[in-house]
């Protein structure tokens, strides 16, 4: 870990002195390893993404090459063929995009409801005591069995499907928010109180920020759940959509196509997760910095 010596004036005095006026810290970066290591870094990152999947696909390929690998486990090239044929066609617009739209709407609503309600419950033990059994009750109900009720209340169109997504994936966000809010550092809460930081500001600068690591955990779980629930919601009152297509393939024994649909689900999950990672990197920048700071990075 030996980095070349950086020879430059240090302009960050602990206290401003006469000679060294408070100059901002030098913008020059050390010509150190961090920069030169780029190409290797890119390679490593590619390996991170692709290595294990490649190994798994290889293993699966070997498995399907056996004679007794059945009808339900087609070879990867069959799946890839089906994938190309299915999703590089107009189905992308008919099935995939509308589903994605509902998925993102549902996820956004769930995030809003989950965080909003979570903050409310997390802050007030009384409200929490009142609401918890009810919420636990609702949480244990399989979303599919509520579909009839939702159809009556929200119709059979996108509204119902979004409602199923929200109902199913709000829970991780809600629970994590509640727990995150409950765990706000008491010293920090006291600080905010005595400086008169209350109301919305308190939520914004204290509660949400300090609960954000846990909220992020909830959102990350919810993102994958939302995809699952997108599929489940399209099992009802549907005639199109990615989930619908997968179920159809399954029912009509179009197995390579079904797997192609699942692969697409996985890819959507991976892409959304990666985007989420970017957002999380920004939101939790301080958190990661804080942790790595102590390791001297």
């Amino acid at each position: 870990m030996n980095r070349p010596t950086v020879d430059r004036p240090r302009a960050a005095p602990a206290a401003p002195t006469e000679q060294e006026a408070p100059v901002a810290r030098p913008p020059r970066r050390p010509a150190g390893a961090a920069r030169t290591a780029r190409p290797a870094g890119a390679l490593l990152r590619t390996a991170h993404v692709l290595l294990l999947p490649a190994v798994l696909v290889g293993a699966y390929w070997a498995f399907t090459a056996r004679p007794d690998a059945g009808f339900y486990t087609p070879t990867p090239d069959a799946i890839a063929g089906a994938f190309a044929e299915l999703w590089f066609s107009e189905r992308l617009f008919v099935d995939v995009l509308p589903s994605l739209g509902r998925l993102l709407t549902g996820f956004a609503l769930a995030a809003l409801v989950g965080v909003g309600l979570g903050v409310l419950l997390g802050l007030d033990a009384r409200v929490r005591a009142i609401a918890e059994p009810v919420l636990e009750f609702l949480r244990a109900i399989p979303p599919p069995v509520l579909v009839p009720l939702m159809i009556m209340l929200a119709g059979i169109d996108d509204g119902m499907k979004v409602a199923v997504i929200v109902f199913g994936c709000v829970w991780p966000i809600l629970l994590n928010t509640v727990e995150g809010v409950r765990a706000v550092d008491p010293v920090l809460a006291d600080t905010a109180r005595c400086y008169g930081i209350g109301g919305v500001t308190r939520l914004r600068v204290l509660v949400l920020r300090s609960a954000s690591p846990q909220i992020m955990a909830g959102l990350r779980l919810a993102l994958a759940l939302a995809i699952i629930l997108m599929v489940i919601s399209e099992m009802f009152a549907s005639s199109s959509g990615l989930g619908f297509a997968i179920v159809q393939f399954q029912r009509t024994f179009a197995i390579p196509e079904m797997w192609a649909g699942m692969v697409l689900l996985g890819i959507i999950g991976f892409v959304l997760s990666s985007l989420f990672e970017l957002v999380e990197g920004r939101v939790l920048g301080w958190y990661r910095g804080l942790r790595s700071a102590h390791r001297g990075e």
Partner: protein
Amino acid sequence: MSTAAVPPAPAPRGARRPGARVRTAPNRPVLGSAGVLALLLLWEAVPRLGAVPERHFPPASEVLATLAERAGTTPFWEAVGHTLFGWALGLAIAFAAAVLLGFALGSAPRVRAFTTSTVDFLRPIPSVALIPLAVLMYGTDIRSTLLLVVYACFWLIYIQVLYGVADVDPVAEQTALSYGLGRLARIRHVVWPTTLPYLMTGLRLAASVGLILSITAQLIIGSPGIGQQITAAQQGGAVALVYAWIVATGVLGVVINLGVRALEHRVLRWHTSVRGESAA
């Protein structure tokens, strides 16, 4: 140099100051019952007022009556028992696997980096879509149900554990390092307690998702349990009975949560979220 010993607990004297912020711990059972009662009243009102047809969404009283009637029969409890068995076993397996892997990979970020893409790829695959595969591999017995429950629960706990492991206070970690605590000891004494709140949330999430999948599996595969009962009720058009089973499921959820909460209160005594509730 002896600091005065803990003073011998004089009972808090006198009445509290008027107007002081009296922060008694809320009476949970009473408040919780109030919440449930409110839900039941709402449920009673919605169909009775005609917001949805009563025939398709029976009021609470009717459903509870049906439930009460069924609860007196053996098949009811057998179904509940089957469901809970699949649930408990699946949850236990998922919990053990997720905790093991979560701690192992969580504390080995270099290795973990290679798994992230695969994990993100696998997580959004619905358990339900795996049913044909499950049946193909394990038939219709308990193992199929287990596969679905474990697959769904695993990710929940696993991701929570990963976030929890990342939450370790660096000063605490460095303390452990400098006192020569080995990897296992660090996990046991530092990482594990830090992760616990996350793990508890993961457990609560997985507990209900496990229940849902245990039921869904029975619903679709047709192995005995609540799910099979719901199918039968649905196919027979017995709406009140369907909702009675839904209520039974919800009640199971509440009971399970009570258990996890009690556990949490024991193991997280020291944590801000719990100690704040019982403190002065």
